[in-house]
């Protein structure tokens, strides 16, 4: 047994304590319980496995990719288990815990311009990989079909089984878009009437870590707009407020993007019939945000 064998099969938790009394039922997939602490374990494992199967990830190659953190932590964990070198390109303003975790697993970090965000990290790693292709395995999480396929093969089927086929709405924020695309594609294949919604930050300049404001950033190749039935906009303040409620009222210590997802899911559920079943994703653990002080020093903050 390897640590990567523990990825997936996460529980589906009820958010009933937070849901409106007359709205739909709301559930969240506890992806923060994956071994590296985020949903990104699934895509990282699948992309690494595909690289090994296709002979792209030879034993002497260094894995490189761009990340705002969670995929990097996942690559670093799996790379350590495989005994491989991992180097990650991250914007200089990526948060302390992510960088510390990546280093703890023995991976290296290349800082890129904080003003350029994730697009800057992506451009830098792409250039380095093109300069020395023989040296690197570049999974390219934004454009690798194995990323959404991981969710098509695992996250989607798990949600289908855990709701006994009763899911009517799936809603999730977008980073690479892999989780949304793969899960939505599977669910719609099982039942064409399942509606799939995206969550978007209300501004291109926001504080919802790991989420992409699609209108102002490089569109990932794996993104599939035809799967989008609707969109909910969430502000950074609302995402943080809901992340706090999840910790204090439900005992779920999750990150800001989970707060955004749940805020959007609760709003959607309120507008739906009680017979509907809404599912969203708790993408990463809140322990990853302690240095940012978002939970404050007192229960009032």
């Amino acid at each position, binding site marked *: 047994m390897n640590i990567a064998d523990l990825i997936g099969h996460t529980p589906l938790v009820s958010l009933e304590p937070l849901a409106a009394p007359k709205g739909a039922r709301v559930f969240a997939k506890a992806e923060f319980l994956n071994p590296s602490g985020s949903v990104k374990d699934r895509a990282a494992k699948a992309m690494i496995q595909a690289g090994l199967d296709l002979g792209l990830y030879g034993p002497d190659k260094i894995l490189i990719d761009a990340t705002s953190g969670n995929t990097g932590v996942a690559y670093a964990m799996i790379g350590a288990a495989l005994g491989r070198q991992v180097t990650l390109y991250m914007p200089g*303003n990526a948060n302390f815990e992510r960088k510390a975790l990546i280093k703890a697993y023995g991976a290296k970090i290349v800082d890129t311009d904080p003003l350029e965000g994730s697009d800057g990290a992506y451009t830098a790693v792409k250039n380095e990989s093109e300069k020395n292709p023989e040296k690197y395995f570049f999974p390219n999480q934004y454009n690798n079909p194995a990323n959404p396929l991981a969710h098509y093969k695992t996250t989607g089927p798990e949600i289908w089984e855990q709701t006994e086929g009763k899911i009517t709405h799936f809603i999730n924020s977008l980073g690479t878009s892999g989780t949304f695309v793969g899960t939505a594609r599977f669910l719609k294949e099982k039942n064409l009437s399942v509606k799939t919604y995206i969550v978007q930050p209300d501004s291109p300049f926001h504080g919802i870590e790991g989420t992409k404001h699609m209108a102002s950033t490089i569109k990932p190749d794996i993104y599939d707009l035809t799967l989008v039935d609707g969109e909910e906009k969430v502000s950074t303040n609302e995402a943080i407020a809901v992340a706090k409620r999840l910790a204090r009222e439900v005992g779920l210590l999750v990150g800001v993007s989970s707060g955004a997802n749940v805020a959007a899911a609760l709003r959607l559920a309120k507008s739906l019939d009680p017979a509907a079943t809404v599912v969203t994703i708790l993408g990463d653990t809140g322990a990853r945000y302690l240095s940012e002080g978002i939970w404050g020093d007192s229960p009032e903050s």
Partner: protein
Amino acid sequence: MSVNLLIPTALRGFTNGQSQLELTGATVKELLSDLAQKHPDIAPHLFDETGAVRSFVNIFVESKNIKNLNGLDTSVNPGQTVTLVPSIAGGRS
């Protein structure tokens, strides 16, 4: 001589694509007022309803975060560089 404000890519849609702006002001607050006056559409992305700077916006004077200086009252001198950076690294912001 004016102060140089560096604009992150996420906000360049509100500055006609410009990555840096020459602005005037003796403090960070005055500098941001000048920014909001010249590019009014940027204001709601930086300030909340009460006019306070949004919690995830970090402002650096040269290499120092104003949170560790005098906040918005931190003085700026002509020729200095001020940078706006989100406290997070997701998406492009």
